[in-house]
């Protein structure tokens, strides 16, 4: 069963009549029989030398959803079933001299089917050890259908199979994302500290991060094939560290860390659709792009009369991509922290990582047909080897010049470089159509590598097109990316009194980015049409590096190409901050940073940046607190032919009202405004229609230039009301409500109906909730809660994706649970 089918089935199962279950579960709550007093605070049980507090909350969730179950699972993914909502054990030694431990804390939630399971264990014995463990599991389901969607139109395919040949090709519309994911991430962090208060401490750590599970991906080779990807990545990190306190108020640490990263993802193409058959009844994968008007996957995709797939079309029988990626990076780190001098404190850190990366047994093997090149079988293999080297040095110091005045300096140095080489051997076999096996040529000239022919290959002369790749190619790509960065922040800080303080400073940042690309090719072009590609005749003559062989083939040895680039960026920033605390109950702070750079690495990297932040908290009275914040970000790369301007403004306030112990209200609102515009170049020409009346892109013939404007305005409001009318009962009602509206440039301005729908850019995401806690006996609390998750996108009028694959959903969740604390 495919992943989307599973999602739909679970959604159907969710639509149960949960009302009777709710009633049944609430029944014991309404019988307020054994009524003890509401406990103010969990006292715990004292046993032997320990105070033990435990609580467990368990129950079930009942879910009813309508609309798009895939979007529900992507955003919420809370499903029906029994759950452990929480389990906590706390043990504390009464005399702080426990036998094995003095403190233990063990907390869990989410087990039984929730997408997020978390466990945390902290255990320690004073002066001897402290152990901290955290385990997290994340069921990462992702199927928001617009992601990587080709947005196929509903144009019918003449002679196509059912669903494709009708007046409206609804089967063309993809209702699942071609990049769907149903992976499971597990994160574990385990740290042991020996002699926490000793002059010498030993630290041992282990972390493990795994991602496993099925996903979809796509590959573009003629058509866009939907691939099944089996994710399997693992990162193991081992750490040994020691802290020395040899001087007063000074700590020196040394760490050895080993990070071992394994990637064993496997991509295959199991998606041969039985509806799409060749005349020999062989099923093929035509990919996910179906656009008859644009000849996708090819012109006359289906043959007249028979409905068979056109054998010269782009289509695939199988695909394989696999390699065992291993990255092994040891790191050494030395750090220092000292308050040895009375007027100074320091922190410094230096680390060096130098590791190897390899991809073993790499293989990529498409089998089918790429009509542009006549490619039928290809096998690409080869070793990949590289290095990952990082050196960093950090230094931070504060000079307490007087009680009020301080000077702060923070320096950061980082230098990393990634040189990686791929020596690929590609063997390509060609045929004129999907029904004909590849012809295998037997050269007398020496090819750069030997190639095993495909099992169905026949001896003969391959049928090449002008775009066919070399039949055998050994290519060495050796690339480098490097960055050297230095940042220094110097600040002067003055505290006028306990009520006001300010700081002013200057940040300088220099970056040097180097990239290098080195490539050599040793290839052979077999006949027919051997003079193609790099050896295509120029004025009737073979280009440099090409040698005609006696068997009709042409050998090609490229001159080594070497392309390097350097980018230097200098940034200067003024920083300023001021805080007031006129009374204990009121505080307000203001920070700003004004940056100017002389260069930008990308067009969207700001050359000028302004950031302003104001935050305030005011406790007006014991029963009323107010919060407010303003964040303004302005960025610019406003140079010729870029014209980038963008901003992100956020304004918010919140109020907490608690007039008495029985009533608590929290309410807030935030407005967020994101804007950008930038000149972009693109091509958009609908068949038979003139191009948009916009100016040509400078120096790129065929592209047009236009100002791309993006707006996104969001309103977020929330409230949470807690009422305790009697000591046994607490009721809660609240909501988190987000509404977003925005606009963006249309890339198909000639079309009456846009291909790309605005989707989540104009949407509402609503989560109201409410419930009751009823303490029906000593230590026992029954809980009944309702949550509603609603997602709605404003449709784009007439757009195919919004007509046939809307992503809206509504979900009602009822959660019944019992908590026992003792």
């Amino acid at each position, binding site marked *: 069963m495919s992943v989307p089918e599973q999602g739909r089935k679970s959604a159907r199962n969710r639509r149960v009549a949960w009302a009777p279950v709710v009633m049944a579960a609430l029944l014991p709550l309404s019988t307020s029989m054994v009524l003890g007093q509401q406990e103010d605070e969990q006292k715990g049980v004292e046993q032997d030398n320990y*105070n033990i507090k435990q609580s467990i909350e368990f129950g079930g969730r009942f879910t009813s959803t309508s609309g798009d179950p895939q979007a529900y699972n992507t*955003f919420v993914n809370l499903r029906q079933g029994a759950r452990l909502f929480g389990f906590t054990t706390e043990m504390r030694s009464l005399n702080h001299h426990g036998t094995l431990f*003095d403190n233990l804390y063990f907390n869990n*939630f989410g087990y039984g089917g929730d997408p997020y399971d978390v466990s945390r264990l902290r255990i320690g014995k*004073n002066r001897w050890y402290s152990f901290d463990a955290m385990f997290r599991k994340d069921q990462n389901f992702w199927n928001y259908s617009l*992601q990587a*969607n*080709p947005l196929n139109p509903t144009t019918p395919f003449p002679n196509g199979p059912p669903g494709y040949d009708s007046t409206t090709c609804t089967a063309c519309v993809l209702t699942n994302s071609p990049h769907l994911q149903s992976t499971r*991430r597990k*994160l574990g962090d385990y740290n042991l500290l020996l002699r926490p208060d000793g002059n010498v401490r030993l630290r041992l750590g282990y972390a493990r991060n795994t991602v496993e599970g099925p996903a979809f991906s*796509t590959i*573009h080779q003629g058509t866009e094939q939907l691939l099944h990807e089996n994710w399997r990545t693992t990162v193991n990190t081992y750490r040994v560290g020691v*802290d020395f306190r040899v001087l*007063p108020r000074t700590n020196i640490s040394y760490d050895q860390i080993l990070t071992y990263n394994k990637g064993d993802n496997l991509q295959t193409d199991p998606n041969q659709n039985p509806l799409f058959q060749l005349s020999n009844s062989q099923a093929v994968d035509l990919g996910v792009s179906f656009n008859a008007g*644009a000849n*996708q996957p090819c012109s006359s995709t289906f043959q007249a009369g028979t409905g068979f797939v056109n054998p010269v079309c782009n289509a695939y029988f199988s695909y394989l991509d696999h390699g065992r*990626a291993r990255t092994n990076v040891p790191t050494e780190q030395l750090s220092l*922290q000292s308050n040895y*001098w*009375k007027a*100074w404190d*320091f*922190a410094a850190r230096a680390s060096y*990582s130098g590791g190897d990366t390899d991809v073993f047994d790499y293989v990529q093997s498409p089998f089918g047909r790429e009509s542009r090149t006549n490619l039928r079988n290809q096998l690409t293999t080869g070793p*990949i080897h590289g*290095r990952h080297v990082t050196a960093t040095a950090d230094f*931070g110091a*504060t000079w*307490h010049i007087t009680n009020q005045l301080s000077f*702060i300096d*923070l320096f950061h140095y980082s230098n990393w470089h990634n040189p990686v080489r*791929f020596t690929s051997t590609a063997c390509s076999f060609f045929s004129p159509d999907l029904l004909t096996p590849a012809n295998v040529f037997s050269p007398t000239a020496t090819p750069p590598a030997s190639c095993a022919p495909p099992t169905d290959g026949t001896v003969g002369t391959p049928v090449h097109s002008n775009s066919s790749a070399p039949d055998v190619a050994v290519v060495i*790509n050796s*690339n480098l990316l490097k960055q050297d960065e*230095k940042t*220094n922040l110097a600040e002067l800080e003055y505290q006028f009194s306990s009520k006001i*303080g300010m700081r002013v400073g200057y940040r300088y940042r220099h970056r040097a980015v180097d*990239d290098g690309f080195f490539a050599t090719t040793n290839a052979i072009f077999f006949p027919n049409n051997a003079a193609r590609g790099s050896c295509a005749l120029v004025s009737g003559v073979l280009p440099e590096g090409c040698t005609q062989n006696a068997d009709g083939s042409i050998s090609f040895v490229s001159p080594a190409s070497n392309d390097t680039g350097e980018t*230097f960026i*200098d940034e200067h920033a003024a920083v300023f901050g001021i805080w007031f605390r006129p009374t204990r109950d009121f505080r307000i702070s203001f920070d700003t940073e004004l940056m100017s750079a002389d260069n930008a*690495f*990308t067009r969207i*990297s700001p050359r000028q940046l302004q950031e302003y932040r104001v935050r305030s908290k005011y406790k007006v009275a014991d029963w009323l607190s107010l919060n407010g*914040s303003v964040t303004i970000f302005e960025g610019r790369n406003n140079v010729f032919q870029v014209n980038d301007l963008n901003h992100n403004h956020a304004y918010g306030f919140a109020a907490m009202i608690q007039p008495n112990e029985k009533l608590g209200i929290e309410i807030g609102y*935030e407005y967020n405004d994101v804007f950008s515009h930038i*000149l972009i*170049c693109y*091509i*958009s020409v609908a*068949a038979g229609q003139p191009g948009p009346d916009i100016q040509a892109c*400078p120096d*790129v013939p065929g592209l047009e230039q236009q100002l791309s404007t993006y707006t*996104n305005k969001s309103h977020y409001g*929330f409230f949470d009301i807690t009422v305790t009318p009697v000591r046994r009962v607490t009721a809660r009602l609240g909501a988190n409500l987000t509404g977003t509206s*925005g606009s963006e440039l249309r*890339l198909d301005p000639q079309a009456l109906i846009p291909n790309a729908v605005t989707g*989540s*850019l104009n*949407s509402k995401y609503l989560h109201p909730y409410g419930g009751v806690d009823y303490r029906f006996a000593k230590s026992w609390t029954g809980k009944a809660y309702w949550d509603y998750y609603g*997602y709605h996108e404003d449709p784009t009028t007439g757009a195919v994706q919004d007509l046939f694959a809307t992503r809206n959903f509504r979900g009602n969740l009822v959660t019944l649970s019992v908590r026992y604390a003792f």
Partner: protein
Amino acid sequence: MPKPRSLCASAIAPTIFALIAITMPGSAAGGRPAKDKNKEKQASHSKYQPSTDPSQYVGAEVCKTCHEDMPSKGFYKGYEDSPHFVTTLDTKKGPEWHGCEACHGPGKEHVEGGGDKSKIFTFKNASAKEISDRCLTCHTYGEEHSNFARSAHVQNNVSCIDCHSPHAAKDSQFLMKEKAPQLCYGCHQEVKQPFNRPFRHRVNEGLVQCNDCHNPHGGFLNRQLRATSTQDTGCFKCHSDKAGPFVYEHEAVKVEGCVACHAPHGTSNPRLLKRAQVNLLCLECHAFSADAGAPAIPTFHNQAQKYQACTMCHAAIHGSNSSHVFFTP
């Protein structure tokens, strides 16, 4: 292309700074803390240095005589049950490390003054710097707190006790005043809304915590971000498949960081992208301009008919070992 500038300025400043520190004769305390409380108050150039004179200290049991139920019922019991109580059990260190007086300073004058509040350090009206100085006297071990004095929190007068409550913690772990992320939202209200968007990191759900990415106690990096153990961007701790290194790097990922394309807290755009439609995001860099290295899209990428999503073909957009156009991993 602009020429590289001299980097002397950035390298020299900390060096001079360190030299001054080492050579300044009056600045070294060298384990010679102020002798008494008055001197301690008057001392300039100073962080908190507790008095080592044992006669100034009275011990926690004396404090208990008045503070057993003051200022609130069970006040002393709460302290007795807390991790800080273990300081009273340390027999090796001096009285300035023990019990209540380890934080509040010597209590003799306060006791002799009949409980005069001005004779002892109270945290109520102290500045963040004063408070953090007290706490950091003990909590300076290791990298986690090593830059707290230079953190954005202290610089905005946010002290340890704005988040931690030694006497009345709501969350026993780390004596937090409130559980995260609500505690963080209390000041950082602007991040509450992104975590309530449809596309978000699962912070409200309890899977991800603010301090997974940020170190609330400060750090060497901007925005107090954490890095991986190999000093790469902290995002790679979970998203390790994007870390590489790759034969063909998407350079912006490594040079400008994930935030070049993604809004890490949450957005209304799929995959936390900064634009709703991925093509528009790609085209913002992949368009001609005189000083941008990213190539423009080819003229056969007709946006009116196909290639509606760049990532459908360029699926390995974060970097690839086998395809210079990021078609395959």
